[in-house]
């Protein structure tokens, strides 16, 4: 499924922070987790994750450390920080408001047909 760029950008931060809140991970594992959580329907451009992680690191939401992978290569692990948890809590609150509002809209107006016929 293709997602609008802005939607990906808006949801990426809470998703990454939420995934890191479960435990420290490296980049590829974070992406795999996103895939699992969305049932494979959400596919990011993989390369975009890293600038995002670096931004979160600069903001102090996550910290990083270099370790080694099972094959002995350098691997960068990310961990959520206390300010990251606070930011996550805030985002969570915001998103639940958005999700709640959207759910009510969806219920009031049934899903529009994907193809509108009769235009000619």
């Amino acid at each position, binding site marked *: 499924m293709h997602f609008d760029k802005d939607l990906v950008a808006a949801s990426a931060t809470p998703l990454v922070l939420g995934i890191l809140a479960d435990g420290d991970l490296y*980049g*590829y594992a974070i992406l795999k987790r996103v895939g699992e959580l969305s049932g494979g329907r959400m596919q990011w451009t*993989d390369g975009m994750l*890293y*600038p995002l992680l670096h931004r979160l690191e600069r903001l102090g939401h996550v910290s990083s450390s270099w370790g080694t*992978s099972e094959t002995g290569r*350098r691997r960068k692990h990310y961990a959520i920080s206390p300010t990251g948890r606070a930011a996550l809590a805030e985002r969570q609150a915001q998103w639940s408001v958005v999700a709640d509002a959207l759910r009510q809209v969806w219920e009031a107006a049934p899903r529009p047909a994907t193809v509108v016929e009769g235009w000619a």
Partner: protein
Amino acid sequence: MAHDDELEAQVDRWRGYVHSRQVISTADVDELEDHLRGQVADLRATGLDDDEAFLVAIKRLGNLDAVSREYAREHSDRLWKQLALVPDDAADSKVPRWRELAVVLGLAFGAGVAVRAGISWFGDDEVGLVRNVGLLVLPFLAAYLGWKRKAGPRTVAAVVVPFVVLAVVLNVYPFHPEGSTELLAILHAPVVMWLVVGLAYVAGSWRSDGRRMDFVRFTGELAIYYTLLALGGGVLLGLTAGMLQIVGLDPGPGIAGWVMPFAVPGALVVAAWLVEAKQDVVENIAPVLTRIFTPLTIAMLLAVLVVLIASGGIVEVDRDLLIVMDAILVLVLALLVYSISARDPFAPPGLADWLQLVMVGAALAVDAVMLTAMLTRIAQFGTSPNKIAALGLNLLLLVHLGASAWRSARFLRGRGTFAQLERWQTRYLPVYGAWAAVVVLVFPPLFDFV
């Protein structure tokens, strides 16, 4: 195994490609590579072969332009390349982080001590000090480069022996006081020494044209870094001196006697270290300057030619003018060599190459005028060490410029390659060192040390 090799080769090529983006640092490439390998491993587990897995993994990483724009938004500072003098991750280098800095500071201090000792030793014999100042400073620079290159015993010998010979010659030859052979030796010895520093720079591979060109680049960058350090140091000293004067202390003797003898030679070693440390961090600035100054130099050379011809009697050209003109020609040569050092050898001929040819042509004309003047003077007044030295230098310049003009004309007309022009420069440079050595070693006895 063959599959793994192929994959490794692909990953290597990809690394090189990604690394060419300056906003993506080495650590970032490592991180992306870890990602890529994880993705490839998972895809292979689902039954794809290496190639397919690699292609899919690359595709998922996304368009490199878009990704590097994202990196640039986060790390805009990296577009201003950062100079990491002491590398953060010691994992990459085997030398401990601070050892090089310690060596550099030690050698810079050593050069300062040597100059300070020289000042005390020679006392009022200022000419003696000037004669030896290169010998007091440049061995420290050569030592740093040799240390950096882990020079073998042959390189060490090739560097130490000339320095010892020069030290003996410059101090044992019975120069007449204020004689011209002494002045010539003082002027030419640094050229020889610089060539010896070059031997330390290229270490074992002194035959390699590429390494020689690297030394040319090193020299240009060193001059620029040194100038910048001198400017910064001058500002600092000026402020300090101003403060001391306000307090009522005279900073003069302290600065002249202690600060300058340490700062001036020390800055040379530090500048060399900066040039070595920056690697590709800062774009080479010397070639940029040559681009700007080539057209200006053409204008200057043409003006000089017009003045020389309009003033009528070329015979009346005096010695001071000849010296200035030689300096101009050496400058032209430096411009030529630097613009060649920075040019992509495979690029087709362009406007800059034509400008360069015009400059070389103008310089040749000036050189011809000067040679005529010199020969006339020699015919009129006979020879002297100064005239022979100047004549020799001008002949060397004439050959260098003439062959350069010929080769760049061939290149511009598509009959020769740029590499030939470049090789000519690097092959010819040692000739200047050899000539300078002749002036230092042979001229004084030849002319009875007058």
